[in-house]
């Protein structure tokens, strides 16, 4: 379906731009279909008992793939558990990323390889990391930027505040991308803050704030692209609030029926970003039903293969208990691995 060279026919510059934009959209859709296949597969694997707790992101594919499409390969990403598949969009083997949810240290990636920090578990703590990285790279003369992901719930934490404030003070080239999906586990955003919108927090840090429909992948891409280019040009950070709705549970162990009306969540399903982008491309004649089906099948097949490779992973070496904690395990740790105290 996507063949950039074939599309780049000898036409007028304007129509070339249109064609290129269409290609971009098709690539974006492909990435979103991969995320969708990954996410659904992970939930299936979890149900089969082949993964432990898994935090699904069904409905947030547009924000994740949109943001990724807006930046360069060398721009670093700072995800949470919710954006756990970002490295897959940059070529990481899906089974490797999934094995993290199997408690397997081989699921821990080299951040430099995919320009992507480890998925961050303690809420909001990755924000100052992104700011530090971004300022540090700029200080070293690079024009790379950072994109840090966090949720609406994260905005209540001190580390959100300290990190964003530092970004403002240091004019760090960072895009602060808040996925406001309305929920933090069982807590609605209205219980998280009395602010009318997350983006209202930007002025308090002297930075620019933009709100965007998080179900509209192209809009997210465009907004993040502008923010990233501003950052690259030295104009400082931007707080982007991508609004959406957490259609699924918080994670596999969560039961949203305990705290919210399932019917309401259902109504949001109609807005989900994958179908929305696909429908738009279909309507514009840039994609056929058959092509879409093929793309879906490809993504699915990739995940089926990945699951097989996941199953084939051997046991973890016990030495990993003490390895990589320090440059070299001090004698004490070697002794402890042997069951001794010193």
């Amino acid at each position: 379906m996507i063949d950039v060279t074939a599309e780049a026919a000898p036409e007028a510059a304007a129509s070339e731009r249109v064609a290129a934009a269409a290609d971009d959209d098709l690539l974006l859709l492909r990435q979103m279909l991969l995320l969708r296949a990954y996410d659904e597969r992970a939930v299936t694997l979890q149900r089969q008992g082949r993964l432990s707790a898994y935090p699904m992101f069904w409905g947030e594919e547009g924000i994740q793939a949109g943001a990724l499409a807006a930046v360069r390969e060398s721009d670093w990403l700072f995800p949470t558990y919710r954006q756990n598949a970002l490295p897959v969009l940059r070529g990481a083997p899906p089974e490797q990323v999934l094995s993290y949810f199997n408690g397997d240290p081989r699921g821990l990636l080299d951040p430099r390889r995919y320009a992507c920090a480890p998925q961050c578990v303690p809420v909001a703590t990755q924000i100052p990391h992104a700011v530090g990285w971004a300022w540090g790279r700029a200080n070293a003369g690079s024009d790379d930027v950072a994109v840090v992901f966090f949720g609406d719930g994260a905005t209540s934490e001190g580390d959100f505040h300290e990190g964003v404030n530092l970004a403002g003070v240091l004019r760090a080239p960072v895009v602060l991308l808040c996925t406001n999906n309305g929920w933090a586990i069982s807590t609605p955003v209205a219980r998280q803050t009395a602010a009318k919108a997350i983006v209202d927090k930007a002025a308090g840090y002297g930075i620019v704030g933009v709100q965007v429909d998080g179900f509209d992948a192209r809009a997210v891409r465009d907004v993040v692209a502008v923010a990233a280019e501003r950052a690259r040009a030295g104009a400082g950070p931007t707080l982007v609030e991508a609004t959406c709705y957490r259609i699924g549970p918080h994670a596999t162990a969560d039961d949203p029926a305990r705290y919210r009306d399932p019917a309401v969540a259902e109504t949001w399903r109609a807005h989900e970003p994958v179908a929305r982008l696909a429908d738009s491309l279909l309507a514009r004649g840039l994609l056929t039903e058959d092509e879409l089906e093929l793309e879906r099948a490809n993504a699915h097949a990739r995940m089926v293969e990945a699951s097989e490779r996941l199953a084939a992973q051997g046991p973890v070496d016990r030495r990993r208990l003490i390895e990589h904690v320090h440059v070299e395990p001090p004698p004490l740790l070697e002794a402890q691995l042997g069951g001794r105290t010193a």
Partner: protein
Amino acid sequence: MSFRALERAGVERAADTAVTMVEALQQALDDALERDPQVLLLGEDIGRNGGVFRVTDGLQLRHGAQRVLDMPIAEAGTVGLAVGLCLAGYRPVVEIQFDSFSYPALEQIATHVARYRWRTNGAVAMRMVIRLPFGGGVRAPELHSDSPEALFCHLPGLRVLCPSTPADAFELLGWAIASDDPVIFMEPKRLYRGTRMPLPGAQPGEGPPGARIVCSGTDVTLVSYGASVPTCAAAAEALAAEGISIELVDLRSLWPLDSETVLDSVRRTHRCLIVHEAPQSCGVGAELAALVGEHALHDLHAPPLRVVGPDAPFPLFALEDDYLPSAERVATAARRLVGF
């Protein structure tokens, strides 16, 4: 919930209703909310969701959203808020969702919760309980299996309690809430649903809780707490079959330590083995071993040993069984002790 529903009918608790630790904790919270209007619960997702472990299940419905408060994700702010509530005369009980998420609250705990009474010459008590599900063994995600109790034992001004049975959970939590000292209440999440037992009477015990002798023995004093207690009990059983008699002491209070009970036992068995999940260096086991060395040196027939976590981060769960003290490791160490 269903357990509580059963209970609502009668005033007296049926002595033969066996409950899990989660249910026991819930009962203690429910009783406290019922008994004392100054008791409030604060935490993330503790309301309609009943907490991620369901300990507060149904309590908001029963006692209202003004007494069971869902908090934003702000551990420092929540503990700080609870300090203010203590100033206003309340007895807040804070639930921190998981062990590691107590770290952001450490400044409030160390500088205020632990020192406010002291800072006001005794005028204002911090009648606060901070409940902390902790430890590994439940295939939890990264940073959901830490054992930070030693940090709270080292920071002056707190009490640190840790039950290992539903009955103790009920009693100790009741005592903690009624206490006028701040209490860090360590809940071994691995034991949340494993065992069932009937609850003791509704009244919390009198004085501060001391250690409990789980089983008497003559050859080795095995000292432990929390989720390692059943591990030690299993080891004791295996050793009994070999003719090694274990006295198992469940500390229950990690600060202050009931050193009397431990020393008394060690003076009889002449051997001491300490078991916990937390890392070795400067852990509770270090303090215990030091106390035993200082106060029972000449009674010892063998060095006090520790079977504890290594000084390494709690691993991703594929390796957690290798990290956690196992009954086998405990038994091996005990055999070493009697072989001295």
